[in-house]
């Protein structure tokens, strides 16, 4: 993918003669020029803090709430009357409920995969897309997670699926893909939530600081809303868990984010292949193609990218974020959908080809029924939307058109839904027993349930857009610095050092110095690094990851990977041991002729569980290694420290013993040359 390369125009795209000057944006930058760190923070955080487009938001929210009401109504009737209301009291036991579940989890998987792969490839432009992709993943998982529960005859006993100490003296059947599914969805929820929250953490701190500044302003002028403003800042403060943007925080954060993304990518593969194995585990024709796991994965990713692209385009238009989400991003999303559309074409063609070539009559019959049977519209919708729609994006003009990108994205998502319906319903409608061939048709309640789950998704999405940053501030700032390293140095180091000797009433916490750029901070830390240890604890604070500050801080070798690995291995191993103990020793039960020790069937849930426990270990490591949460910290006493989440870099030298000599540190800092580390300001900070 051209966009993953660093800087410059995408080399893979021919600047053909057809590309008229009007298509300039296609080769434009990933970020509008002249964006400073502060502008980026302002543009994004203005959305949750000042709610632009309030009226449109409320109209959309009312519509989403109406759909959510439909969901509540449907679920109420479902609980009263049972799953028979969906019209599948016949051989088609899996219909819209499982299709909806598969579709939602597919959207979630696709979004996680896009966000995770872009992160692992270190695509520096991902900031514009990753937050929305991660949010789509989380909310789609929430919508998906309800289906396995509500499609049960007695949903209130959903926990029977999980291994818990029950009074039946029984274990759930670990050889069954239904159990894999239960473990998968729990793990996926944990991973999606973690990926979303860890990515959000520094941005929450930015929001907290901006809200705090606003709260202080309102208190000074005695505004009537000052208490609400303070409360808002405190709510952001609590969810930000005391993030201070310290160099150590950023280091662990970056590792945690990448590792969770890796776990997420592995889990996506486990979940999607698990979903297809669940079909292959049955005797039904049409569900045994060896390409089925790949086809599931391709369609999942395509629908995930489609939904993400549609939402990215909407957010860009509604909130006027053209400077941050540029035409280049749309172009990249378009290329991605085009590639996946072609992959989808390959999957369909290979399946048809393989089925027609081999001699298995029931498989061929299913294929023909897909083309011509009662549910043929599902097949043709799937092919037209999944394969056909993305072909529009061969046109460079379409790839930079927000409307085209959104339309193709939504069509691809609709196609993926049709594909799930086709795969499930066409096979099931023709039971092996002619007596069981009752007709099935999608009915109003099934559609209402799905529409209601869309309502749940949209309601949560709108709440997210209203209260949280829709574009990753931290990642976009990193991109801004990569494009123009001076983006943060608005006033540069020309500023004069202004040490103010003020009498301190209380004991001294340490000395702080402010810098305009990371380079200055790193130089100053280097100058002080000789004092590190014993009595002085050095740290840097800033709005972006500060890899250059790590060497003088002596933190270079730190890694979160051992914790993640230990968590994953322990969790996965423990789950595998549980499966073996339960199935081969404690609850020996002959089922389907499977051997007592059916080791391969325990691998899938164990992998999913390993991903979940690895992720939990990362959370613990993130908190413990960073000594978080600290809501109240002396570093917050540094004058102007709010800008540490904006465009300033701070050095803190904390007193940790009697040998701490504040004067010596101040003199050392003040003596630094102006172009290499001289601070804008030096302060003594009370405890």
């Amino acid at each position, binding site marked *: 993918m051209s966009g993953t390369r660093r800087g410059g125009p995408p080399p893979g795209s021919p600047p053909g003669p057809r590309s008229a000057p009007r298509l300039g944006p296609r080769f434009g930058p990933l970020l509008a020029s002249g964006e400073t760190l502060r502008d980026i923070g302002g543009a994004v955080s203005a959305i949750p803090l000042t709610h632009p487009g309030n009226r449109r938001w409320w109209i959309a929210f009312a519509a989403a709430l109406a759909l959510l009401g439909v969901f509540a109504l449907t679920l109420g009737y479902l609980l009263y009357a049972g799953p028979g209301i969906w019209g599948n009291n016949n051989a088609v036991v899996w219909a819209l409920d499982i299709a909806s579940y598969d579709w939602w989890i597919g959207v979630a998987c696709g979004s996680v995969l896009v966000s995770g792969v872009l992160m692992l490839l270190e695509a520096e432009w991902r900031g514009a897309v990753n937050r929305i992709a991660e949010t789509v993943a989380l909310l789609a998982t929430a919508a998906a997670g309800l289906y396995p529960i509500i499609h049960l005859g007695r949903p209130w006993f959903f926990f029977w699926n999980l291994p818990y100490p029950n*009074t039946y*003296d*029984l274990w759930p059947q670990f050889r069954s893909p239904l159990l894999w599914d239960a473990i998968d969805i729990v793990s996926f929820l944990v991973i999606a939530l973690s990926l979303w929250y860890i990515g959000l953490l520094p941005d929450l701190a930015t929001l907290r600081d901006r809200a705090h500044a606003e709260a202080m302003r309102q208190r000074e002028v005695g505004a009537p809303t000052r208490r609400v403003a303070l409360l808002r800042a405190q709510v952001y403060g609590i969810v930000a868990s005391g993030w201070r943007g310290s160099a150590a925080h950023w280091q662990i954060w970056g590792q945690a984010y990448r590792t969770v993304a890796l776990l997420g990518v592995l889990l996506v593969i486990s979940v999607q292949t698990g979903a297809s194995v669940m079909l292959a585990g049955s005797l039904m024709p049409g569900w045994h193609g060896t390409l089925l796991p790949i086809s599931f994965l391709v369609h999942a990713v395509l629908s995930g990218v489609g939904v993400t692209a549609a939402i990215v385009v909407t957010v860009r238009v509604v909130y006027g974020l053209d400077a941050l989400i540029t035409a280049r991003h749309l172009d990249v999303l378009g290329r991605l959908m085009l590639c996946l559309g072609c992959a989808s074409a390959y999957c369909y063609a290979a399946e048809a080809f393989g089925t027609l070539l081999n001699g298995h009559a029931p498989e061929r019959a299913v294929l023909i029924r897909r083309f011509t049977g009662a549910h043929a519209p599902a097949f043709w919708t799937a092919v037209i939307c999944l394969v056909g729609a993305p072909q529009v994006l061969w046109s460079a003009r379409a790839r930079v058109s927000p409307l085209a990108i959104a339309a193709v994205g939504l069509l691809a998502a609709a196609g993926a839904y049709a594909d799930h319906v086709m795969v499930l319903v066409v096979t099931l409608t023709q039971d092996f027993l002619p007596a069981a061939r009752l007709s099935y048709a999608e009915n109003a309640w099934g559609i209402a349930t799905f529409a209601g789950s869309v309502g749940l998704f949209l309601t949560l999405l709108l709440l997210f857009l209203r209260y949280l940053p829709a574009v990753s501030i931290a990642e976009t700032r990193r991109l801004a610095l990569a494009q123009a390293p001076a983006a943060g140095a608005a006033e540069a180091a020309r500023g004069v050092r202004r040490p103010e000797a003020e009498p301190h009433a209380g004991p001294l916490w340490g000395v702080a110095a402010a810098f305009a750029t990371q380079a200055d901070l790193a130089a100053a830390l280097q100058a002080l690094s000789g004092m590190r240890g014993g009595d002085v604890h050095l740290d840097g604070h800033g709005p972006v990851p500060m890899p250059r500050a790590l060497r003088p801080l002596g933190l270079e070798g730190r890694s979160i990977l051992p914790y993640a690995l230990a968590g994953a291995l322990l969790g996965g191993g423990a789950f595998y041991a549980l499966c073996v103990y339960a199935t081969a020793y404690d609850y020996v039960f002959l089922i389907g002729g499977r051997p007592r020790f059916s080791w391969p069937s325990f691998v899938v849930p164990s992998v999913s569980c390993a991903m979940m426990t690895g992720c939990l270990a990362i959370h613990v490591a993130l908190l413990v290694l960073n000594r978080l*949460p600290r*809501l*109240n910290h002396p570093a917050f*006493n540094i*004058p102007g420290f709010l800008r540490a989440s904006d465009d300033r870099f701070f050095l803190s030298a904390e007193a940790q013993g009697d040998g701490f000599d504040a004067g010596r540190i101040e003199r050392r800092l003040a003596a630094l040359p102006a172009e290499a580390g001289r601070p804008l300001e030096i302060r003594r900070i009370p405890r």
Partner: protein
Amino acid sequence: MAQLFAPGADALYRLALMTGLACLVAVPVVAAGIVRSSYVTGVGIAPAQPVPFSHKHHAGELGIDCRYCHTGVERLATAGIPPTHTCMTCHSQIWTGSDMLKPVRESYDEKKPLRWVRLNRLPDYVYYNHSVHVTKGIGCSTCHGDVTSMQMTYRANAFEMQFCLDCHRAPEKYVREPDQVWNMTWTPPADQATRGPELVARNHIRGGARLTECGICHR
């Protein structure tokens, strides 16, 4: 610059986090405990009966055989509760004026059965046959406890699935000689390890795989 939170906020926040984590563990543990408690299972709780009938007095001290009243235990699917006539075989002769027995006499006169409070009840989806258990050597006390020591009768075991499975998985641990079935104070003899499998073979009990099939109880 001002702090957004007071110094005490850290402790509160961490306490809240720890409490949340502790609840995550504690809620299932407490729920599992409640489900197993007598409050839910009713084990050891003697409900009020229309007549304060004492198994300890009749079956224990007087030594009346179980089958004198529960006539069907060896032949029928349910053990059965005796009709008023059974009581009156004796109480038409002794304690005929007792106030305590007034409901029994009224029941007899009016031909209306006494409404005993049932203690041992299995769910409708469990197929259970009383006679096969008794005739294959499972004693009364294995399920019902030492009834001869109960002044007022109570439920001795919660008939949860794990109780049934415990025996169905390893019947040789519980099976008795035929003459011991009615022994209310039976404990496994020292040679149960050898005698159990013998009895299992003699009584054609197919434990383990066969007895743990779902369809054995859930038909």
